[in-house]
């Protein structure tokens, strides 16, 4: 089979053991056509679909490695099965769907757009995120939301240890069990308006369920100021 083929209206790109630079160049060329793209035989390779432009529909068959969809600027990316570390890291805009599980640091330092993980996600979901939404249908791993500046992490299935650790203005919403909280977290009862905002994110994903018992986690803001005279605030870290 040739490396770039056409199937119906799709452009099909073979990964296999080709140099990742070549694969990404083919992907960028295909993006310029405006046609849907299907990337096949991905072999869990790292760095597939980095820095993709706006108005692109791309599907990765099978599983992918690290940094898939990293620095995305608007593409609609679908990963059929699992992804490695830091899917959608630094992404500014666009939509990423992960059909299976996501590895560590899903959506690390992302700025905008939405990541939707259908399975569980590994540790440090949304670490250092600056905006956008991460929706995980399963459980999010330990230390998720670590120092999230802005944006929302929404876990429908629960959260691991040290959840929502040391947040800035990011929010972590969990519908299931939380194994333990991180430092400086306030767990608050969301208002109906806030729940409506989250449902508006879940609605296009078909995930709204009014019976959920949400816990919304925000910063306690005790670590925001170094000038604290409260020594115990420092001993907790």
């Amino acid at each position, binding site marked *: 089979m040739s490396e770039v083929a056409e199937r119906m209206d799709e452009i099909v790109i073979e990964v296999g053991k080709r140099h990742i630079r070549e694969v990404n160049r083919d992907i960028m060329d295909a993006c310029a056509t405006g046609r849907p793209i299907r990337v096949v035989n991905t072999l869990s390779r790292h760095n597939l679909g980095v820095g993709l432009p706006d108005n692109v529909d791309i599907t990765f068959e099978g599983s992918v490695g690290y940094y898939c969809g990293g620095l995305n600027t608007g593409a609609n990316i679908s990963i059929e099965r699992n992804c490695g570390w830091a899917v959608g890291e630094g992404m500014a805009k666009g939509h990423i769907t992960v059909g299976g599980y996501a590895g560590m640091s899903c959506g690390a330092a992302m700025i905008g757009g939405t990541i939707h993980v259908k399975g569980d996600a590994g540790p440090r979901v949304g670490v250092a995120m600056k905006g956008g939404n991460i929706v995980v249908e399963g459980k999010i791993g330990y230390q998720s939301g670590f120092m999230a500046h802005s944006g929302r992490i929404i876990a429908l299935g629960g959260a691991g240890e040290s959840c929502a650790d040391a947040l800035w203005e990011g929010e972590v919403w969990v519908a299931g069990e939380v194994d333990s909280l991180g430092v400086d977290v306030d767990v608050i009862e969301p208002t109906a308006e806030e729940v409506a905002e989250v449902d508006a994110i879940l609605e296009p994903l078909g995930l709204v369920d009014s019976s959920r018992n949400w816990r919304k986690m925000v910063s306690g803001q005790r670590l925001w100021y170094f*000038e604290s005279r409260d020594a115990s605030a420092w001993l907790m870290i």
Partner: protein
Amino acid sequence: MAHDLSKPYEYPFDVASEEEIRFRDAGAVDGRPAGVPSSYDEGGSTRWTPEAISEVHALAQLGRYQVRGYNTFNKQLPTFDDLTFVPATMTRLPLEGYRESCDTTTVLGGGRGLVERPLELKIPIYIASMSFGALSASAKASLGYGASKVGTMTCTGEGGMLEEEREASQRLLYQMSPARYGVDLDHLRRADALELVVGQGAKPGTGGLLLGMKVSPRVSKMRTLPEGVDQRSTIRHPDFLGADDLAVKIEELRIATNYQVPIFIKMGATRPRFDVAVAAKAGADVVVVDGAEGGTGASPELLLNHTGIPTMSAIRAAREALDECGMTGKVSLVAAGGIRSGVDAAKCLALGADAVMIGNAAMVALGCNSPRYLEDYAALGTSPGACHHCHTGRCPVGIATQDEELESRMNPRAGAERIARYLTAMTMEITALAKACGKSSVHNLETEDLRALSFQASAFTGVKMAGIDRAFDW
């Protein structure tokens, strides 16, 4: 033979009176008695010095460690003055210092042949990573224009790309810190090189610090932080942990920038022999080693004073590491930390650096610690020449501040020209030494051109001791 102790010895004269014994001899001055140990007045504990005591008082009062800017106050660190050049004499031929030319062109990041646009600088010095946030926007722009005039580069620092600096700097290094403030694909692609920071010399192993006084509306927007918070940043990157992941991350950045620009890794100098080898193996085009003398806008003082190793020792270790793993020529080495002049810079090149960067020195050239607005130095409890209050944002000369009134005290056009002149003068100093040593390129300076004036400097660097011509070695 011992006296018979059972029988007290008696002088053959009357015992002196207590009054006489107390050094009250003729001529004694009231108020200056002899026979009082000097320690009564001066103390003398080598551990409980007045500085140590005031330190404990400060901790007891504050209940936390002290934060400040500037650089290390540790008196045990060697200085570049512990090294001297030994120019050409009989065994080597000097170049004509006032007539013959000496090449200063410095290419960084082209060694692997992987990127389309290696950095070609006209001089072996560039401006270190100082963020917008730590410095004012005018100061950043001045650094950019000054550097552009002499054909060299500035670095964004961790606060994201400031449009004023991008416009001013013909070559701009874009820094990605662990906190990833203001990361933007468009900015990455508009940069002339990218830098992943894993640490800095002033506080290796600890993330950036920007106190609330400097988290202005603009800074807070660029960093996505609440206004006025004390920003204490992460040190671990969000999306890689070890060397294997770093190699993948570097590849990601290459793809994102279409293999156009070099990738730097910047680290604080701690175990450079291993750290530099790992960074080189992970695929960096340029490794920046920042010694313990490196400056900062704000840091816990204990880390400034008590972490990291001296720049001179780090350069030798880094160069040997690159030699040992066959990466010399493929990976460029940049040194920083405590460089005050072209002389210091030349010593770094001779020790093995391909280029140096200057941070504090560039700020001083802009006017940091200059004797103006004395009342504002006094309000900070300091004076020109001793100021280290970058962390407060109340910079009396308007460089390390986000306050508009203070910022207006720095003349940006004058600042740009001062930077250009300072860099020119530094370069002249380097070429003067290089030519005296018989080198037609500053990059031909070598360790053999140096001698150590102290055992310490020789032991740290392997440079031969002056006179005896052997390294103080194990």
